[in-house]
């Protein structure tokens, strides 16, 4: 019995070996291959444009809602509408969704806008900087991006008129939807087949 078990285990190990890669000719795969190039700090900085909720990555600069209104009219309104109402289906509504109600699952037509759906204010800066305007992404300065963020937050009642938005004040803005977001719980604490 015990002997049979040993034989079975040996066979199992042999089977694993047979499945393993055989093209290292006996050499173990190294921890590192040493392939690639070490970038300079400047090379990293040129690409390192993301902004985190704590404000990490926000550049110097500032802007006000009033400055943003002018830029919005010139560069954004043609797609997102004069008043941020959007143009379905490609260009989303930005502002003016219902406030204080979060039952979005009851009707897909409830507008999801920055003020009632976006959980982090920093996302606004990050997204505008990397992707907008659609036909000239990356063309806005840091000041213009702060100003546009300030304008949209002001339109949603989250920043007073005349306020200056910068690397310190932007991450401090608490977004109304923040507490409504929950991590994926479809598997529950124990996994399994439940439909959630």
């Amino acid at each position, binding site marked *: 019995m015990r002997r049979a078990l040993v034989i079975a285990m040996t066979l199992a190990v042999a089977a694993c070996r047979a499945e393993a*890669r055989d093209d290292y000719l006996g050499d173990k*795969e190294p*921890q*590192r*291959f040493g*392939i*690639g*190039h*070490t*970038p300079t700090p400047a*090379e*990293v900085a040129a*690409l*390192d*444009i*993301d*902004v*985190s*909720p*704590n404000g990490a990555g926000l550049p110097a600069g500032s802007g006000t809602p009033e400055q943003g209104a002018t830029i919005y009219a010139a560069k954004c309104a043609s797609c997102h509408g004069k008043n941020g109402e959007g143009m379905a289906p*490609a260009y*989303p509504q930005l502002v003016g969704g219902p406030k204080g109600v*979060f*039952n*979005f*699952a*009851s*009707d*897909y*037509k*409830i507008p*999801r806008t*920055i003020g009632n*759906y*976006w*959980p*982090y204010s*920093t*996302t606004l800066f*990050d*997204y505008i900087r*990397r*992707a907008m305007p*659609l*036909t000239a*992404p990356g063309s806005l300065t840091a000041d213009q991006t702060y100003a546009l963020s300030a304008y949209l937050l002001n339109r949603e009642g989250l920043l007073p008129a005349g306020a200056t938005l910068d690397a310190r004040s932007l991450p401090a803005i608490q977004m109304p*939807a923040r507490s*409504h*977001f*929950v*991590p*994926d*719980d*479809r598997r529950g604490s124990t*996994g*399994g*087949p439940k*439909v*959630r």
Partner: protein
Amino acid sequence: MAETTSSISRRKLITGAAVAAGGVLLTNLPGADAQQVTKVPAPPPASPVAPDDPTKVPGAPTTAVGERSPFVHPQRAPVGEITGTSLTPLQDLTGTITPSDLHFTRIHAGIPTIDPTKHKLLIHGLVDRPVEFSVDDLKRFPAVTRVHFVECSGNGRAAYRTPKPEMTPQQVDGMTSNSEWTGVPLATLFREAGVQTAAKWFLAEGGDASLLDRSIPVSKGHDDALVVWGQNGEPLRPEQGFPIRLLLPGYEGNANVKWLRRIKLGAEPFMTRWETSKYTDPLPGDKIRMFSFEMDAKSIITSPAYPERLTGPGWWPIRGLAWSGRGRITRVDVSTDGGKTWLAAELLTALTNKAHVRFEHMWQWNGNESLIMSRATDDQGYVQPTMAQLKAVRGPGTDYHFNSIRAWRVARDGVVTFEANT
């Protein structure tokens, strides 16, 4: 003489290729006004003429690049311009592999034209050694080749919200496709960079004009994530991320960042637009689920389906596709009586992890009106829910992950129409 013939055929070939590529080529040309390119699919060419007896005349010469039979015209259904989608014609596919030129696409700032000799992948952040790889560098690492599906998590939205009897499998679920991918495990690159234990998330950023970025758990990188350059035996197509894309088996399509150019390791998620404003799931009550990456088990019958018509009672194959983002499909059941009774379908292909599986059930149709449907089960024990079950837990206004059982109504005259409410 031989040279003349050869140059004529080459010119003909190039012209043919340009016509076949249609609007896609035009939108890629720098300076072309993408917004003016028509997105209406080109009509199929005029009916081809075959000789009465093909065995009595010599056939066509060999060609540098093969083409489909002139009798066959599968087409994606492109919608939108700089931002847009194109849907895989599921009803035209056989087996499990989606031809690369029919793989669905979802683009947010057009399809970039990238010179592979200039493209780099940077890995930095919470790593011991920031490192930058050229595409050739990546190809020096030990490679793997695996079959996986990619499905947009918005797949099935129209069927969930605004179903119509006249919907084809392509219109219902055409944002899932299945390919053989070749690349390097992200875990290998993580070791190369020395990912620190404090790193719990990584930002994956694409090199398109939207610089699309998503936060992914580092555990996925150590598990089965790949950086791929090959698809179905050739380099990635531009619309699939040429020269490299992230491939996260089983995760919603948007997270499989195309034209991958940067990976940054961090302690927390970065909360990009694509994981907050979009790709989040409102739930009944006032909650919004985020980071719902895995695509739950799903199946769809691709034949018979609208606009097919059964010509009469008798034996008919019911065929379709099943897949799960959480593991392997273990069974697919088929019902021909609206879900009252179920029978196990034949699984025709390998039960590959996080990949499409082809199923078939031979059905003896008696000519009565019938409601046929399929139900997938995966190795986690998860069973594809009905529409009623899914709507109860997600609400009618939820925005992604529409994996309810799909049905087709076969009328007495053989006409087949879509039925979403199961």
